[in-house]
């Protein structure tokens, strides 16, 4: 099956729940298991929280959330137009955080990676970050 959505919200912490709820509702038609659903919700929560807490150090910016279903594969994209990530490889390392003083533990990217089949991170300093989470729902991982 084929489906898409696209939305934008203010980067306020109360909107983290909104992003998870929209994602959960969007994949309902694929009949995910409880585990698949909580994995994708957690991964989305990590990406959206990063956009809210890291991308806009001087205030509140907009966060984009879009989704695409293609067969059994779900693509969820979280984007911001914030400060960007200067070293993506280092940012993705387990336990790396740029903000230890804010009680962050550097687990976000590791959780996204272990709860999705694949994640793709594109970022440019000064212009923002786009994180795409890719996960197959249901069925044999081998078949498309």
């Amino acid at each position, binding site marked *: 099956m084929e489906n898409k959505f696209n939305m934008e919200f203010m980067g306020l912490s109360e909107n983290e729940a909104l992003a998870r709820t929209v994602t959960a509702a969007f994949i309902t038609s694929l009949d995910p298991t409880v585990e698949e659903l909580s994995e994708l919700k957690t991964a989305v929560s990590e990406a959206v929280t990063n956009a809210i807490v890291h991308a806009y150090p001087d205030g509140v910016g907009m966060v984009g959330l879009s989704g695409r279903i293609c067969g059994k594969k779900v693509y969820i994209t979280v984007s911001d137009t914030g400060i960007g990530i200067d070293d993506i490889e280092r940012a993705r390392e387990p336990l790396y955080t740029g903000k230890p003083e804010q*009680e962050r533990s550097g687990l976000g990217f590791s*959780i996204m990676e272990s709860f999705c089949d694949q994640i793709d991170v594109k970022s440019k300093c000064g212009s923002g970050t786009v994180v795409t989470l890719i996960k197959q729902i249901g069925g044999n991982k081998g078949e498309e």
Partner: protein
Amino acid sequence: MNIIETDKNALLVTPEGELDHHLAGKMRTEIDKKLGRGIINIIFDFSHLSFMDSSGIGMIMGRYKRIQKLGGRVIIAAPKPQVKRIIEMSGLLGIIQISPSVKQALRKL
């Protein structure tokens, strides 16, 4: 979220719903107001928590560091499978114990 002081110098913290960055911020403020002044232990009752992400881990770690300085302990009671999985992934289990119930957590203090 419910916070009460129990015996054994403990704070029993019972959040409901989803522990993300939004709720973690509120919990941090509420808990830190009560630490010290006789309270040296925290029991997190996670039996009503359906979701947690890394922001919850950061909040728990932060409270653990404060409790450690007070010479007390942090125990997590009754986490659901999704929450338990995140706790296990985080390495938190090396420093914080999980109990099946609040009753048993209290007994450990």
